């Protein structure tokens, strides 16, 4: 039972931030595409803005790995 809970916790640790990242990226992506269409010189800034929310899922991934390692 404990192992199952740890597994579930690992899944949630990566799943919830993944949803949050996807939501944020969708919003930034649509705005970014419009901005780049009007000002192509903002491409790099848009990549930066688009990539910022990814930190959430990366940290979630680290937590998930730590939890999975507890399973042995």
């Amino acid at each position, binding site marked *: 039972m404990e192992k199952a809970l740890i597994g579930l916790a690992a899944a949630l640790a990566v799943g919830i931030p993944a949803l949050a990242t996807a939501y944020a990226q969708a919003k930034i992506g649509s705005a970014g595409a419009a901005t780049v269409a009007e000002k192509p010189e903002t*491409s*790099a800034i848009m*990549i930066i803005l688009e*990539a910022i929310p990814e*930190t959430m899922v*990366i940290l979630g*991934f*680290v937590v998930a*790995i730590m939890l999975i390692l507890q399973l042995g």
Partner: protein
Amino acid sequence: MIAEMIHLKIIGLQRDSKDLIEHIRDLGVFHVEIEEAVEYRQIADEPMVEKMKFLRAGILGLLEDLGWNDWSSLPQDLVESIGNAVHLDDMAALDEIEKSLVEFKGRLSEMAHEIRAFEESIFALKQVHYIANHFYNFFTEEKKRGKAISFWLVETGKISGLLKKLERKIRSATPVVERPYFNHKLLSQGENISIMALSVNQDKISAVHEIMDEFGCISYTMPKTIVGESAIESPMAAQMELKWLPERLERAKKTLDSTKEEWGPRLAALYILIDDRLESLILENRLSSEGEIFTLTGWIPSSEFEKVKSSLKNRFGERVLITWRSPEPREWPKVPILLDNPRWAKPFELFLKLMPMPGYKSTDPTAFIAIFFPLFAGCMIGDIGYGLIFLLIGLFSLKAFRWKNPILKGVSQILINISVMSIIWGFLYGEFFGDLGHRLFHMEPLWVERTHGIIPVMVFTVSLGVAHVILGLALGAYEGVKYKNRHHTYERLGTLFTLLGIVLFVVGYFNLIELNLVPFVVALLVTGLALLIKGGNLSGFVETIGSVGNVLSYIRIAAIGLSSAILAMVATKFVDVLGVTFFGILLAVLIHLLNLIIAIAGSVLHSARLHYVEFFGKFYEGKGKQYRPIKRRRGTAWRKP
């Protein structure tokens, strides 16, 4: 690195100004310094400049209408011969060109209109022919019987109700001694509309109109062919027209094509000449002059200085005076930036072209990108098989674009670098199309198998992040010293020391080295905090926390690499499950193909992000402007603007 620039001032006689500008354009290295607001006003008032701009835009529009876009094969001698024939400095000649262009545009519009009319006629005639064929038998049979035939557009959903009502109406209107007559035929025209042909006795046609009006139907008149005959009475006429109309369309298209072939290059050559002259004219207007003397100021790369000096001396002798000097620190923001990197790093300048240029005398990160970008991307892909495929694609595209497109040539070189690093990492991870190498050749990893040893890879990527972020902070501190920005320097150094302290603390906590690190940790943290406080505000502390987050962000290299490795293994597993069958191998190949695309897209995007966000954020400030020398459009460098 950023090329050293020299500020050059050329003073000469007004009568030489035109020749001098042409000479400078031939040299192609002089970046003119201008005061935009003043110059725009001057140029806008110049009628010849306005006329040339108008003609240039007009020619470009005509080329668009013609569909001509073969700039790369425009012959040089054509440009020269048209240049000799046309006098662009004469307003009357420009008026004449404008008149000819207007006439040409009229002819072109007529041709386009004719083609469009033929295309529309063919489309409409096909429709008519289809409808006429459908109703032809019905129409001729009913006509022979002497019936009244009418055509209607009806809503498809109302047809059954309409037919019932029509039958009832005809029956009730027909005397008992006569036999009621009613016949119909339908043709669907899309989802909601149908054409209905109705045949009744001649005296019942008013009853039909009454019912059809009640149901909101519209009377449909069978279209006529071009020769004026009704298509339903003479479907052969429509068929004949369908034979000769495409021939006429083809002839009209051929005429347009030959006009395109004949006039496209001439118009393009004229465009080049006007564009060329316009640039010189604008420059002539920008010269600051006083009496018989003019002055032209600008920037040239110091490596070109001797060449420019001797060339001007040979051409104009004592008639021009040149003064030059290195830019003063207060001028640095105005100095145009030319990136001048060694061949191995040159393709990676592409990454800076997506951003504002770095400031003069600041750090050009291209060389660092050239080292770290392929390293990160290769670490994510980490597969010998994938690396070999990317290497082949890179070599092929390099061969294809070497002389044609400098951007695609650069992209190909970057791809080759990534592929080489992927192969090296592939050996370290022991991966060849996932675990296929292990299965077929008993390949073993030189370092660690990613799917089993995720922790070592994660630790390595975080260490890579520490090194990369610390390098960025060190460069940031160096920039602060160079630009005499104390706040910036203290903040970057404070963050750097604090980060190092945290790293040593982690190393000591996990006993990774046999050394008492506590004094070092304390010293580094105290120094770091002191520098952050000296830096002046809270942003330094936020920056430090952000830097820790930045370092952790490098774990993505391990995470993306792991997902790529697992997907590659899944592909091979299909052969296990389905056996060495066509279907099994096909599925494995398809999944490898998908993984290949995800691997290159993901690794490139994430490596770029690590550079733009984590690395550049520590030192890069896009405060420079691009070096844009005035030069001629010539040879194969001609491209559509």
